[in-house]
């Protein structure tokens, strides 16, 4: 079983569009949406939720006003400025618990906070694991790890040969959680100065964690000069550019229609994505579906 994460550094370069399109081509993958704080893959793949679980990962300090004698020691030791007027600021509190150990009255406890939900679903292209981080909650990295673990379990038990992960933007904790131990990363960029700058940083993250990377330039014809710069940079770095997708308003139209580009049109964008998938599959060890499970074997293991 192989795992690929689609990342980008910069947001809005087309990660989810690419993942949804690849999903229509692979037909033997478990899909995982690791962009847990702004998940969008479900809008295109319309998953039917089969299993729904709460996610508990963070803790928060609670002051019992009956025991509190107002000594302010908790406020003095808190490094996150989370204690204001002997009340805990739910958003600033990181749940470190230092206050509870220092309180002479034993008035502080840590309580578990529900920080989100995760789901196992069925889509027209196979099982999907996704999640929703609660409003103003933290620990998105842990939720990403959980989503990936479940996707891998389903893949292993159902004999799927690929886990396709839609990653978050940026380079911080959820990105690192979505990259750890995967077989390869596909970095989707666009030919703007920001796109190039952010691509360089996210490729450095891949190198730091020893994840091989490939690059896909989306809307490549919008600025051919910048696309050329990306190609040159990637050549120096030894990172293959495996796809150059032209700009086409059809992509937005497909999205507004809540469909993948491949299903919506057979045009040049679809063709380029198909070519990219062939290159990707070859690099991962072609053909991926050598040990493709039988129809019965592909039944979901929930």
């Amino acid at each position: 079983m192989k795992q690929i994460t689609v990342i980008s550094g910069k947001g809005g370069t087309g990660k989810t569009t690419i993942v949804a399109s690849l999903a229509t081509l692979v037909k033997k993958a478990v899909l995982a949406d690791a962009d847990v704080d702004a998940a969008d893959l479900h809008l295109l793949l319309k998953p039917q939720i089969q299993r729904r679980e709460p996610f508990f990962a963070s803790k928060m300090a609670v002051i019992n006003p009956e025991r509190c004698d107002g000594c302010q020691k908790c406020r003095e030791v808190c490094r996150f400025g989370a204690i204001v007027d002997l009340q805990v600021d739910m958003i600033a509190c990181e749940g470190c618990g230092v206050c509870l150990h220092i309180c002479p009255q034993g008035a502080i406890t840590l309580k578990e906070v529900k920080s989100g939900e995760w789901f196992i679903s069925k889509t027209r292209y196979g099982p999907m694991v996704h999640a929703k981080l609660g409003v103003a909650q933290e620990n998105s990295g842990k939720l990403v790890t959980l989503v990936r673990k479940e996707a891998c379990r389903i893949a292993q038990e159902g004999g799927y040969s690929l886990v396709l992960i839609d990653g978050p933007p940026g380079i911080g904790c959820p990105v690192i959680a979505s990259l750890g131990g995967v077989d390869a990363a596909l970095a989707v960029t666009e030919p703007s100065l920001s796109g190039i700058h952010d691509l360089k940083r996210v490729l450095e993250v891949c190198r730091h964690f020893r994840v091989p990377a490939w690059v896909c330039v989306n809307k490549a014809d919008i600025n051919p000069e910048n696309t050329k710069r990306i190609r040159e940079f990637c050549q120096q770095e030894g990172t293959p550019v495996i796809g150059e997708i032209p700009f086409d308003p059809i992509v937005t139209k497909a999205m507004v229609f809540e469909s993948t580009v491949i299903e919506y049109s057979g045009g040049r964008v679809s063709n380029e994505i198909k070519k990219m998938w062939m290159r990707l599959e070859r690099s991962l060890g072609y053909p991926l579906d050598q040990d493709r499970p039988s129809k019965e074997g592909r039944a979901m293991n929930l």
Partner: protein
Amino acid sequence: MIISVASGKGGTGKTTVALNLAFSLTNVQLMDCDVEEPNLHLFLAPQERRTIPVCISVPQVDETQCTHCGKCAEVCQFNAIAVVKDQVLIFPEICHGCGGCTLLCPVQAIQETPREIGYIQEGNYNGLSFVQGVLNVGEPMPTPIIRQEKKLINKDKTVILDCSPGTSCPVIEGVRGSDFCLLVTENTPFGLNDLELAVEMVKALGIPRGVFINQEDLGDGKLREYCRRENTPILGGLPHDRRIAEVYSRGGIVVEELPEYRDLFLALFQKIQDIGFSRSQDELERTL
């Protein structure tokens, strides 16, 4: 006045809006709070005044004093410290720097040493005061950098904060404490879905909010309907103009190259100010 610019979905035009708003006004401090992927500097080439490293304090154990009692590992909520037989293992990348282990060690065997996780740069560009935070590659925690960066806020200026995409910790750290949050979105299903999440986040923080629609002529009426229902005013928008995308892609500034857009950003600022003003009026009346 402190205005934060956020979005939920990435790539909707936060940086474009923050930048062009800043260039339409005077006496501005522009801050890049997207420390994972800061982009504003690409458009400004600012003259740098100083670079300040950002460190968090991580524990260091004096093995000669340590009794291996395990108290530090017990109090650490982040599993960043473990005691195995007669050895203390520290995992600095996941340490939040809360100081619990240092404070609670019964034999005071733990000291804290600073570990650099990124840096802040302060600079100037044609009278515009500019600050950016940068997270070092491989580091997971952007929030301490944003927290440090926001200490440099100059309240005598109009402060514009360009935040990261999403709705979790780094965005909250950026938006917290601002007087107004401008949510930039695009008129697509992804844009709307992520805007809904972002609106919930801003509501939880109790900050007045408004929406700016990029490529407003795309899509259907769902976005406007949502804003009406949620009582979230639409304060402006940019049309789908290929020239804007071209100016952006080579690092240009829209209001300088296409001056016809300047009025649009001035009107946007006026509306933000009006909302901020009516809110402070409300508060005044409530306290009276």
